Every structure is written in C-alpha cells, then in structure tokens.
C-alpha cells in the first residue's frame, strides 16, 4: 500500500457531557478499502460527520493528502465564550462546511439514504456536477455557456452508463427499488469527483445476494476511479469480504485495528459485539 490519503488525528467530539468520539486516530491509505465497525452508538457515524464537516469536532485534526483540512482545539471554546482572541489557538483552527469538504474531494453516502427523492435519476447525479461547473448564475440562466452544460450532461451520462443505471435515467429516484437507490447514492457521490469515498452502512437492509453484488460493485468503482474507501458497516460477512483493514470502535474509542482475520479473533471485539461472557 502506498501513501496515507486520509488521516484522523486525535479526533474528539463531545455533545454536552457525552463524548461520542474519543481521541480517534486512524489512517486510510491510497487505494485501500477500510471498514469502521462497532456496536450501535459507538460513534462511527459521528466520526463520519466530523470528517465531512457536518459537525465541528471538539478537538483534533483531519488531514487529506497530508494537508490539514479540519482542525479544532478545545481551548477555542473558551475564547468563543469569553471573547477576545488567542492567536496561538486560532491559527490552528480550521472549520469547513460540508460543501467545502466535498470540493476538496471527500464524498459520502448516508446511513438512511438521502436521495433527492422527487427528482429523476439523471438529475440526481447531474446536480453533483454543479459544484465544479464553470458558469455563473447569469450565464447559466441565459444559456451562454451551453458547452459547459453539455459537458456536464455527457459526463453524467457516462457515469450512469458505467453504473448500469442509465436505463433508469428518467425514473423518479424515490420510486427505485431499495438496492438501486443505494447504488444511485454511490453514483451521485462519485459524480462529485472524489478522492476519498465514505460509505455509511451501504449494505444495510440488503440480502446476502445483493450484498455480494455490492461488494463487487464497490471494488470495481474503487479500481476504476482510483478511490480510497472508508466504510461503516455491521454486516460482518460483507466487511470481511471487502475490507483491507478494519478499525473497531466502542464507546467512541478505538479498541482494535487490523486485517479481517485479526479482528475476527480479537477477544476485545468479541466482547464488544457479543457481550461480556462471564463464564468464558
């Protein structure tokens, strides 16, 4: 494996008194598929939300290709509350909204599919092209830059064809079967042109067959687009099939990391997943 593309450094997220993610440090290498697993409420989705800018982490930093893209310091809160400024802390603080993160090249899907349900499949993907489109409101409105529009449409078409979704292009996204919706959501994320793809429980609600298909699909797109993939999943079958490495979270803390084999036999993981077995 080659270089580290995404790195979390001491990421901490607190809500009120609850620490949802506690000093999480992890790495994602280029071209790798890494899974983040753990029981419900372990803080996996919260970690995703921190990476994508939905939440501002309480402490820690996130690096993309070695560049610090998000950083916060707990002392900054004091500054915010009591006023004044402290160059020492402020300098290090980088806060970005989700759209900025997407622009930097991190795309994601959601645990409970968030498609634009009333729009067509084609428009769902096309809208992701908006971010990098080189037109302003006026030229877009007056169709002055029709080449740009044509390019966006062409790329969307290509993408959909690649995903085998083009035949559904005029269907309303909300009316697609569940499996296709998952696929479409991934296709939409791909349309933003990411380097890193974050998948939040992509196999949830799928049967073993569909799960198998999905893992093929994820591998294909990874190869084709040169992606690195970080995914959250419960399905151990699926994770074992697809992941190069696994990180295990429990109560916001990293309790284990390693290859699927290592993880399956890790007693701490068994305890977190199957519960403490006093007799054992």
């Amino acid at each position: 494996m080659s270089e580290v593309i995404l790195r979390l450094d001491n990421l901490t997220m607190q809500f009120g008194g609850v620490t949802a993610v506690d000093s999480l440090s992890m790495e994602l290498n280029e071209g790798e598929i890494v899974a983040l697993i753990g029981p419900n409420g372990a803080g996996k989705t919260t970690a995703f939300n921190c990476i994508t800018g939905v939440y501002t982490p309480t402490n820690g930093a996130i690096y993309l290709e070695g560049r610090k893209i998000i950083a916060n310091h707990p002392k900054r809160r004091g500054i915010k509350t009591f006023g004044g400024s402290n160059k020492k802390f402020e300098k290090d603080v980088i806060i970005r909204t989700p759209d900025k993160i997407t622009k930097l090249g991190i795309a994601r899907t959601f645990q409970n599919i968030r498609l634009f349900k009333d729009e067509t499949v084609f428009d769902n993907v096309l809208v992701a092209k908006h971010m990098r489109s080189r037109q302003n409101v006026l030229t877009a409105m007056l169709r002055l830059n029709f080449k740009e529009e044509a390019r966006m449409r062409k790329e969307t078409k290509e993408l959909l064809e690649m995903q085998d979704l083009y035949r559904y292009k005029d269907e309303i996204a909300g009316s697609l079967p569940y499996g296709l919706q998952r696929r479409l959501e991934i296709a939409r994320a791909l349309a933003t042109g990411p380097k890193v793809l974050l998948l939040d429980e992509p196999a949830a609600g799928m049967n073993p067959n569909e799960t198998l298909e999905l893992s093929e699909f994820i591998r294909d797109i990874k190869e084709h687009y040169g992606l690195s993939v970080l995914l959250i999943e419960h399905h151990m079958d699926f994770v074992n099939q697809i992941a190069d490495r696994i990180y295990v979270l429990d109560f916001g803390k990293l309790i284990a990391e390693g290859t699927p084999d290592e993880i399956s036999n890790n007693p701490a993981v068994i305890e977190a997943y199957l519960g403490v077995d006093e007799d054992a």
Partner: protein
Amino acid sequence: MTNKKRIIISSALIVLLFGGLWVMELTMNTASMLFVVLKKGAIYALLVAAINLLQGFTGLFSLGEAGFMLLGAYTFAIFTIPVEMRENIYQYYDGGLVQFTIPVWAALILGGLVAAFFAFLIGFVVLKLKSDYLAIATLGFAEILRAIFQWDKLGVITNGSNILRSFPGFSSVLFPFGVVGLCLAAMMLLINSSYGRAYKAMRDDEIAAEAMGINLFKTKLQAFVISSFFAGIGGGLLAMYQLTVKASTFTAALSDELLLIAVIGGIGSITGSVLASFLYIAANEWWLRFLDQETFIGAFKIPLLRSGFRKVVFSVIIMLIVLFYRRGLMGTREFSITGIYEKITAFIKKKKAAKGGAGK
C-alpha cells in the same frame, strides 16, 4: 420532438399570443374587465412566480414579498414622477430631493436591483433561520421596511406616508405581458439550469445537497436575491398599473395572498402560478363580483349574497385546496404546449394505427 421543432413551435405560440392580444386590444372594448384581468393577472403571475421560486423551488418559506414589492414600487415611482409634478406631490417636503427622471425601463430594473440589494442585506441576516422562523423574520423585515418608508424624516425621498402618483403607467396590455414574459422566461431558464437543480436539491434535502458541494448559505442567498429582484420588478409594474403608490398597502396580508395563490397553482410549478394568478384575478375582480351584490330573482332575494361573501367563498376554496388538494392545480408539473402537442400527435398516431389495424 427535436429541439429545433420545439423552439419553432414555442416562438410561433409567443408571436400568436402577442398578435392575439394586439388584435384584441384593437377590436374589443378596452374598458372591459377582461383587460384588468389580463394586466393585473400578468403582474400577479410574476409576483406569485417569484414567491414560488423561493417556496417551491428552494424550500425557503418567506412572507416578506410585500416588502420587496414596496421597494420596487417606490423606486419606480420616485424616479419617474415628472419633475414638474414633484412640487405638487411632495407638497410637505418642498418638492422632494430627487429632481430628475429616468426612463421607465431603467426605473423598473432599478426597482428590481434595489429590492435585490435589500434582499442581500436581509438574507445575510435571516437565511440561517429555519422554516417557520424564517417566515416570521422575513415578515418582520417587510413590516420594518414599511415603517421606514412611512417615516417622515425620509419624506424628501419617499414623501413620508403620503401617496405618490402622476408617474407613467401603461395603457396597452402588451407592456405588462412583455415584461412579465421576459421575467418568467428568465425564471424558467434559471430553474432548468444547473443553479435551478441546485435549488431543488436544497429543497429536497439540505444535508445531501451540502454533501454534493452546494454551499447552502450562498445558494439560498442567491435564490432569495433573484426572487426579490423579480418581486421588485413586479412591484414596479403594480405601481404602473395602480398609478399610485402608498406604503401602507404593502402589508403582510398581501404577502399571504400571494403565497396562497401560489398554493392554488401548485407549489413548485411556475406555470401553475401563472394559471392560478390569472384565475384568481379573474375570479376576484370579475367573475365572482356578483357574490358581493345583493341580487334578486324576481322578488326572491338570493340568500347570503352581500358585501364580503366573495371573500368568504374564496377563503373556503383556499382551505379546501390546502386540506384536500394539497398539490394545487399543477402540483410540481409544468404546463407545456409542446408537451400537449406531443400528446396529441401521439394520440392521433395511436388512433390511426388502431384504425389501420381495424381496416385490415
């Protein structure tokens, strides 16, 4: 249908529409209420479409439309009142401060720009608020604007709370149709552009839209400013239609009325808004006026009919639509002549095929 064909049909229809209006104006009695409906309906179409751009396409619940109309109307009036009339109109303010006029088209656009500028300032403050809070805050801003325009310290510009008049209007129905047509076309183009898709994405799911790289705040602000621009132009046109402008008429009730028309037409359909506007104005100003008149058939007095009944009937209709017919006349679909043309040709083909089949 090919693109070319579509363009040809559309432009032919537009020419036909304007030609038809022109002929109508030449041949018919222009005092007829029909022309009121056409003029006012066109202006309302623009205003309702502007509110729909926010409510229906961007998911922003704004009740501040009247404020932006006020800005447009006042800007238009202030810059087009003939200089010789100013002494008279600004009688309490020594003829006012502005002592020049600009052409009508420039004043209309300026009105739109002023409204857009204020929308930018206001939007900067309130667009972070969510649904109902946003509605109340925009309503509040509209009321504040109204108070400012009635303030006598600004009387040299706004004539205080007093009426503004004597500015140019329009006599031909072609003028509002032209201006509104242009604005609506621009709106339609916007909605079908990349930006329009971004708006709709934001309406459907803000979080997903943000994950698609759409900057929520910027995009909302943009939609808000554009909608207000059109509301400003609409306000200017309304001033031209009414021939007088007075701040006290731009109330929250006006915004509500426009929003309810948008609901009738279908939230998320521009053509629905246009259709609903014409229907509303026609019914309100013309067809249903009889509901307000005490009417006798012979010696029998028709019950219920008296002043105010028209509005009761209206509000009941609106409630019925809101409760049982939530998508309005058009839902989110757009009415397109080319679409109808396609349907008709398909239908004819089908018939022909069926006939052919039967013949054999």
